């Protein structure tokens, strides 16, 4: 079943030249993928169901678990749309206009990718924590940001900041602005041009970016762990809930919560792959493989 194909070439090169190496490389790759990627995924579900289906379902129905799921959804529901709006605005600025300082702006947008998630949480504590810059003011006015939902949202936004912009910028760069210019010349308003011309052109890439942004937002651990305070049922997102249960040696509970997140990861992968297959022409070139 192992065929060596040369894309673009009519004759299979390796079948003649390398009779032995292809199966060997395949085997090595498959072993690496299995040991490093498939086994960890499998172990999540195996441990979650280690004591059978009923304990698994009971762990999922626990009040703290449900509160964690709700909080995770809430945080993602606030941070993902904000980053999506920002992503569109940033991509519009960068790809439709020529101005000085553009490459600096691009670098700054990418900056959060190169910062440790823990640092992305730390910066908000430095601003709003008890000994942070606005700490005393916040305490005096009884506003809670750190160890509360706003802190979780801020940390998540910083970590997922570049995701949507990163997908849109290369695509809109490739598309140019001829279609928008035509619409404007024909008398469309700026908003109509964006709504009827630009948005349909970028919708799949936007969805792709939102998908990745959402996966990271719901799964983020390091940044939210710094600002959360780990208050059960109140400031624990699902990944933090996993940690608390795991450290309590509640294996079934931890892996049951982890299985929801693993399911989210698998769904994200499936949707992402479908987008890449069906709409590869409408994603940026770097996503077509």
């Amino acid at each position, binding site marked *: 079943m*192992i*065929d*060596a*194909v*040369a*894309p673009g070439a009519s004759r299979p*090169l*390796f079948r003649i*030249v390398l009779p032995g190496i292809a199966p060997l*490389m395949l085997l090595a*790759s498959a072993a690496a*993928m299995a040991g*490093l*990627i498939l086994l*960890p*995924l499998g172990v*999540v579900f195996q441990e979650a169901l280690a004591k059978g289906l009923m304990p698994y379902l009971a762990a999922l129905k626990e009040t703290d678990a449900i509160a964690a799921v709700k909080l995770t959804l809430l945080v993602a529901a606030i941070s993902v749309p*904000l980053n999506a709006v920002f992503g569109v*605005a940033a991509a519009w600025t960068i790809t*439709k206009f*020529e*101005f*000085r300082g*553009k*490459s600096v*702006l691009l670098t*700054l947008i990418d900056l959060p990718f*190169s*910062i*440790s998630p*823990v640092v992305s949480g*730390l*910066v908000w504590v*430095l*601003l709003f*924590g*008890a000994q942070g*810059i606005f700490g005393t003011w916040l305490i005096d006015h009884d506003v809670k940001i750190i160890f509360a939902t706003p802190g979780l949202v*801020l940390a998540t936004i*910083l970590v997922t900041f570049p995701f949507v912009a990163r997908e849109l910028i290369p695509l809109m*760069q490739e598309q140019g*602005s001829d279609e*928008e*210019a035509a619409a404007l010349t024909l008398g469309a308003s*700026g908003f109509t041009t964006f709504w009827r011309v630009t948005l349909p052109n970028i919708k799949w890439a936007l969805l792709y970016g939102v998908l990745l942004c959402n996966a990271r937002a*719901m*799964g983020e*651990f*390091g940044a939210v*762990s*710094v600002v959360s305070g780990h208050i059960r049922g109140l400031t624990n997102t699902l*990944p933090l809930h996993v*940690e608390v249960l795991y450290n309590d040696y509640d294996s079934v509970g931890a892996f049951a919560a*982890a299985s929801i*997140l693993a399911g*989210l990861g698998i769904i*994200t*992968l*499936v949707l992402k*792959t479908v987008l890449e297959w069906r709409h590869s022409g409408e994603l940026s070139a770097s996503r077509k493989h």
Partner: protein
Amino acid sequence: MTDFVASPPVIRPGGTVRPRPRRWKEHSILPGFGLSLGVTLIYLGLIVLLPLGVLAMRPWEIGLDGIVRTLTDARVAAALKITFGISFLAALTNGPLGLLIAWTLTRYEFPGRRIMDALVDLPFALPTAVAGIALTTLYAPTGPLGALAAKIGIKTAYSPLGIFIALVFIGLPFVVRSIQPVLQDLDRGVEEAAQTLGATDLQRIAYVVIPALGPAILSGISLAFARAVGEYGSVIFIAGNMPMKTEIAPLLIVIKLEQYDYAGAAAIGVAMVAISFGALIGMNILQMALARRGRT
């Protein structure tokens, strides 16, 4: 395309070419520049620049002395060494491993290839805490792979090797996804020419394929390295977190914060950002040098 594009030069009578005086922004008939730039800058300023500015300022309240004392403290220095050292080793390991998988995915057709291709991104999609507890369960002395390693006397989880495994897991997609498009576009004619001229397979791979892929491999390695340095969720479960031995720098930031040592935490944070920035610049220089050599 990302650079500033100058206006077309003005050709003067007499033939001298003089660049048109650059304006801050080129004229465009598209609307919305002010609005979109405004939204971008305000959001960027509030979410990224203001917090990072505060991070950069905070350590100075303990003075340069205090910063040096914090960073040279044996436990902090050990954590920085462990973080950057193991991240570097893991990123290096991802090079050949990523090349192998990218090669298999682009050059061979086999059942399940597309599923394998999609699964490469699992470390991106799987929340790090989940990856952390799953890897720990697998590689703990009682876990299936950990027990196997223990039989031949190797300790995997709760040792530096455990950190290494987690970081290889996290970094793998970066290398595969950097190499894949380049490998796909690689001109097969050159390889065939090498073969016709009598090159063995090893020679063809070593002298034709690898040099062409060099910049892509390096860029993948540096992305994997940058990610590994900051990684927290997948590492803290498997590391065992013993001070001086398996304690990573991000964890030490968390510990300092719990002790309300904000300045110390910020100092470690700034040091991490600075070191990874320096490493990335170094990698970029190496990459440009490689690309230049590949062209000539």
